[in-house]
């Protein structure tokens, strides 16, 4: 009996080690590279470690600029996305819409088909209007692509707010607008914040659109990271990767409640 318990305990430890290795292992590699100054095979950890490349990234203009540019783009995209998506989400959650089927198809389609051809052709259109190599070109594309999931996250939020609360306010004589701003909006704030963080992280990490529309004049952080990685500058690439990755992991842990995988299916790329 006792032997069996020890066996089970060992099995559990083995499973935990395996899971940690599979999930955390690839991330540990990036962390080690970001601190590696000298790392030759077959040493398990770098022979010489230090914060040299971290200091470099935060001092050297080009890399830091790309991170700041990504922050700026992501912030503007969050604002645009919330301003455009919230009314649409309210419409979807509270009204019987004309042409509803058509609208749903349009708002779900970008998740269902490959987006790369879209980005390529937007780049072609933008080139004619000198929006390539321009921060605003990237902002427009990110706003479009993020709408598709922010609309559905916010729709789910509005739908979770009981309609009776709004009806009570309306019955007591409040206008539709006042009802929205005093009843619905405050209750929806957690969902709006979740959507905002989501859009922010997505925009920060987006590569494909930023690459085709920004290149070669404008480099966002992911494009910078790609260039560094392709040039075998593993350290710089790893530092930028970590800066982009840590908020994503942290967010995942706190966001739990708003995870609706079907709506965010089209993320990544």
């Amino acid at each position, binding site marked *: 009996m006792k032997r069996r318990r020890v066996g089970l305990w060992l099995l559990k430890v083995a499973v935990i080690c395996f899971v940690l290795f599979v999930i955390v292992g690839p991330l540990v590699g990036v962390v080690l590279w970001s601190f590696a100054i000298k790392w030759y095979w077959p040493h398990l950890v770098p022979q010489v470690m230090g914060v040299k490349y971290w200091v470099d990234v935060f001092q050297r203009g080009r890399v830091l600029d790309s991170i700041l540019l990504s922050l700026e783009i992501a912030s503007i995209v969050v604002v645009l996305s919330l301003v455009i998506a919230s009314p649409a989400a309210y419409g979807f959650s509270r009204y*019987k819409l004309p042409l509803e089927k058509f609208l749903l198809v349009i*708002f779900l389609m970008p998740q*269902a088909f490959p987006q790369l051809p879209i980005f390529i052709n937007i780049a072609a259109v933008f080139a004619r209007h000198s929006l390539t190599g321009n921060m605003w070109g990237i902002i427009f594309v990110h706003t479009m692509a993020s709408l598709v999931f922010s609309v559905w996250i916010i729709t789910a939020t509005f739908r979770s707010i009981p309609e009776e609360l709004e009806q009570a306010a309306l019955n007591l004589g409040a206008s539709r607008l006042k009802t929205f701003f005093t009843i619905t909006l405050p209750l929806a704030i957690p969902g709006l914040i979740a959507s905002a963080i989501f859009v922010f992280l997505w925009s920060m990490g987006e590569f494909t659109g930023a690459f085709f529309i920004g290149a070669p004049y404008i480099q966002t952080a992911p494009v910078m990271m790609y260039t560094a990685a392709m040039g075998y500058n593993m350290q710089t690439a790893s530092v930028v990767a970590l800066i982009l990755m840590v908020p994503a992991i942290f967010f995942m842990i706190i966001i739990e409640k708003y995870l609706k995988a*079907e709506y965010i299916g089209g993320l990544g790329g």
Partner: protein
Amino acid sequence: MRVGTRFLRKGCNMATYEGRSNWVGFFLVLPALLVLLILYVYPLILSIYSSFVHNGVVGLANYGKAFDLYGKDIFYTLFVTVVTVAFVFGVSIGVASYLRFKEWKFLDYMYRLPLFIPFLIVGHAMRVFLARHGLLNMIISKLTGIQNLPGLATDWVGLMLAFAWVLSPFAILIVLGAFKAIDDSYIEAALNLGSSKIKVVWDILIPLARPSIIVAFVLTFIRTISSLTIPLMVGPPKPTMLPVDMMFRINYYNDWGVANALGVVSYLIVIGFAMYYLRFMMVERGGLKH
């Protein structure tokens, strides 16, 4: 009395509020719709149209060239995608079933860790991890003494593992959600009658959760086949996945016609799955009122 009529008047308003077609709602949706029409639907139509235009002549020349040059890549893309979906299927059913029977906070947090990590960074992490002299091979060499292990990072297996690493969490999330929505009583009844847990998964959980499971794999399929960044970072230089071919076609040859033809090919590959996804979302979760 006055309060009463006022209530009634508002009551009438409520009726239209919930009533038939309402253009107020449409105008709320309009700005977002315009953004999507201009920046999604228009480029979509353009991509299909330009795939037929070769040197100013409308025809199938781009498709001929695309199949000549990238026929092998089309099959390779399908192959990697199907293997990835099968792998993700196994992992997600396994993990979701385990977590359905037994709560384990550690695994619950662990499986979700990769969820929001941008694909490009996953590609970079996997490229470093699976390299010939990467962390994985180093650890295996240290543990077993085997030297000269192959570098998975430049192999389709590494590419498949990178996809599986980042896509399994989504599949598990969807499948587990569907499993949890199934009432305990079904499971307990079967267990009391002597079914094994594996039989419960196969005969009760999977059939009852079928629509969600299919959606999980439709999404896995679509995301694998449309990803540019992961095959850009991981996998052999040749053959490559279609998105990488599209990118090279444009960056090195400035050949938009063939790139768009490849794009349309990828639309055609996913169209059946996309339709299923759209129908599922519209009926079950989408915007339709209940």
